[in-house]
């Protein structure tokens, strides 16, 4: 008998059907991968399973017994554990406190910390999940926090463990460690649902893959019968190929950072002695686990704040102090990290967002003082057509656009003034496959026209597919940029984890590793 059985689960949000009569089953010791694009309904389904949402129709059975819908408590006591994509931990509390909350009767005069500590230590050693029970969560690395989340589920005797995009925040090595842990857990009979959109991970860890598209299961395959292209096609529903860069000789430097530092050098995310050169016809990728200074670097180059020492040269001109207006007028195009928060104003109309970086030019204003609405709307219409922004027209509200179309709007705004430098911070995060291909094509075309591009991404695969050079950020420091292809994923992963030794003697080590990779 399967340990978990979902029957005919349907969930609607208004007119959107997030889950459409989904049937799934899961056996003991099995890893089921749930594959799907963003917005396909994976997270909604798991939130129903964990009792965060209540399904409109359908039934969940654990060991053949129906599960009370809409109750987290019932789900936990039935043996379901969930590791959320965004960890549900309290930063200022200790590991032990985070794990024991809710495991004891609330109305009691004391906590049984001693027994809890004993159980936790015993569990840690049994599953190889080493953690200091008295450490505060704020002091732990992301990998360790995930360990706490898994322990939290195991502490409550979970038999079904749900992992929602668990590798999104990990270095490649940490991801390998996680897979090791998961294998030892399934060997002990735990059933795992692994949610991801990364194909190679799914192929590496799962026994069976269920593919979700637009809220419905569109196929189920045994992993041994699947390969990347089959899964990709099932997930997207059509064949979409991402663009590949053609080789091109780089030109003169457009942006040069020398020894740039920002204040508060004590925190791991303030910039320390950054050296970076970006040439025309070149994409330089910045790799790193989020929170290591990428946001600060992006803010600096957007003109949002100032550096305290070092020099920044744009097109051969030294910038003493930077403002956003300077950067725009000097031809810097920006794609911000969070397109909803800092990319557009959702409540404003599309044309307003499209011209918001270009308010004083002749194309949108009279004498640079009064906004010329009809000219601005004309211009917006041109951009909408040129960049294929799917919308009801320039007067529609921006927040009604899909993520991909909002990103197209931002691209249109950044690319239309013919910039010489583009700052692209996580430009494809959370987009569907079609939009990803579109954005990447636009960036590569800009590079071919002679634009220098700084590409910040947490997705190593993306960086390795697009960049000419890659540099790694760790604790506010930036490694020297190396030619893409001169280092393996494993080597870059070590650099992302801050292991300095791997930074040295790069050419030989890199070459050897490359040969090794080819030999395989």
């Amino acid at each position, binding site marked *: 008998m399967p340990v978990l059985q979902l029957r005919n689960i349907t969930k609607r949000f208004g007119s959107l059907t997030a889950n459409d009569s989904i049937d799934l089953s899961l056996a003991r010791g099995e890893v089921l991968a749930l594959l799907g694009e963003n917005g396909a309904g994976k997270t909604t389904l798991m939130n129903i399973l964990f009792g965060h949402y209540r399904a409109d129709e359908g039934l969940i059975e654990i060991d053949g017994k129906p599960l009370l819908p809409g109750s987290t408590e019932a789900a936990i006591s039935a043996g379901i554990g969930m590791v959320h994509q965004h960890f*549900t931990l309290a930063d200022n509390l200790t590991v032990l406190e985070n794990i024991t909350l809710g495991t004891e009767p609330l*109305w*009691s005069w004391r906590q049984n910390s001693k027994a809890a500590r004993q159980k936790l230590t015993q569990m840690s050693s049994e599953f190889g999940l080493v953690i200091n029970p008295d450490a505060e969560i704020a002091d732990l690395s992301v990998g360790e926090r995930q360990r706490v989340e898994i322990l939290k589920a195991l502490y409550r005797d979970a038999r079904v463990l749900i992992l929602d995009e668990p590798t999104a925040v990990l270095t490649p090595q940490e991801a390998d460690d996680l897979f090791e842990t998961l294998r030892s857990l399934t060997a002990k009979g735990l059933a795992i649902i692994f949610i991801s959109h990364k194909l190679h991970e799914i192929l590496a860890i799962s026994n069976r893959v269920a593919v979700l598209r637009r809220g419905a299961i569109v196929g189920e395959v045994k992993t041994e019968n699947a390969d990347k292209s089959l899964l990709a096609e099932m997930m997207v529903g059509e064949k979409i190929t991402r663009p590949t860069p053609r080789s091109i000789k780089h030109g003169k430097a457009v942006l040069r950072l020398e020894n740039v530092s920002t204040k508060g050098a004590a925190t791991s995310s303030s910039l320390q002695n950054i050296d970076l050169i970006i040439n025309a016809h070149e994409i330089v990728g910045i790799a790193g686990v989020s929170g290591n200074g990428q946001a600060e670097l992006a803010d600096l180059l957007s003109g949002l704040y100032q550096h305290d020492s070092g020099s920044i040269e744009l097109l051969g001109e030294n910038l003493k102090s930077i403002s956003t207006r300077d950067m725009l007028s000097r031809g810097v195009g920006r794609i911000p990290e969070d397109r909803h928060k800092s990319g557009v104003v959702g409540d404003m109309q599309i044309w307003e967002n499209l011209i918001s970086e270009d308010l004083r030019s002749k194309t949108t204003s009279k004498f640079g003082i009064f906004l010329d609405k009809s000219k601005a709307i004309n211009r917006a219409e041109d951009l909408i057509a040129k960049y294929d922004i799917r919308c009801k027209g320039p007067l529609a509200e921006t927040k009604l656009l899909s993520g991909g179309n909002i990103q197209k709007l931002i691209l249109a705004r950044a690319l239309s003034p013919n910039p010489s430098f583009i700052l692209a911070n996580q430009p494809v995060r959370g987009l569907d496959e079609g939009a990803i291909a579109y954005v990447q094509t636009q960036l590569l075309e800009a590079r071919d026209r002679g634009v220098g591009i700084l590409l910040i991404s947490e997705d190593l695969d993306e960086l390795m597919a697009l960049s000419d050079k890659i540099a790694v950020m760790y604790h506010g420091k930036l490694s020297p940029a190396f030619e893409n292809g001169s280092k393996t994923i494993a080597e870059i992963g070590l650099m992302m984890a801050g292991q300095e030794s791997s930074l040295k003697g790069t050419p030989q080590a890199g070459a050897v590793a490359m040969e090794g990779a080819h030999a395989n």
Partner: protein
Amino acid sequence: MMDLLEIILSTGFWAATIRIVSPLIFGTLGELICERAGVLNLGIEGIMTIGAMAGWMWVYQGGDLWGGVIFAATVGGIFGFLHAIFTVHLGLSQHVTGIGITLFGSSLSYFVYRMLLPSATTPPKIVPFQTYKIPYLSDLPVVGEAVFSQTPLTYLALLCVPLVWYMLQRTPIGLAVRMAGENPVAVEAQGINVLAVRTGAVVVGSALMAIGGAFITMSAFDAFFFGMINGRGWICVALVIFASWRPGKAFLGAMLFAGLEAFQVRAQQITGASIIPYQFYLMLPYILSIVAMVFMARKAKYPHALLVPFRRGERV
């Protein structure tokens, strides 16, 4: 200079400090419990006012003193529940709701007072809590008179400090309260009802605030008149920040403020001090509190989910 030193060394000064600190302790601990659960309660000024009125009125209408304290706490708890409905269940602005509760609580207190005593020109009096000397302990030098010769409500206030600390740090419900203020999603993910935990914390915290108000009419004075809370609630809100949301530090902060208050009253009376206008002494506690706060609050570990409403099933 010697005169000022003499003030601090006198037993009377310390006794006064302990007396002044009592309502501040109730108020600060009450606010602290609310904020640790993630809810700012700016209704404190109004809740203290209504506590002061309710407790006093209970006794004036013939009830006994402890009954008055319980009645004040109940009324305070009801106002806390009102605050919780708006801020916790409906997720409305905690600032606006809190100020609304303060205005409503204060006005309602005066309204009820006037309605029940329409013709009173001089505020009528009750027999308040009397000093209770704790056997043996009150015979100790200095502390005997300063600490152990106070009214029972003061002892209750001092007792509340370790009690609230123990509740927050050592019991499962305290852990749930702290976690609700840090990351309500985590509480939800462990199968505990966040809304219930937060509501409970606001109700209990507000009841404590109301007892703080009742202390003023039933222990410090013997009458109720308009404007008698006089900003003490706001001081408590500031003290919580000063204390970095810790009960022990909250006590120290309240003692500092009360000490300055007791000091300024005495300093005004010293001969030769009159060259400085008395208003200067009046503002002294507030200025020094602000300065102390600047230093104390900078490194405070504030509850991460303070002011953030939690809605069940919302996408995270």
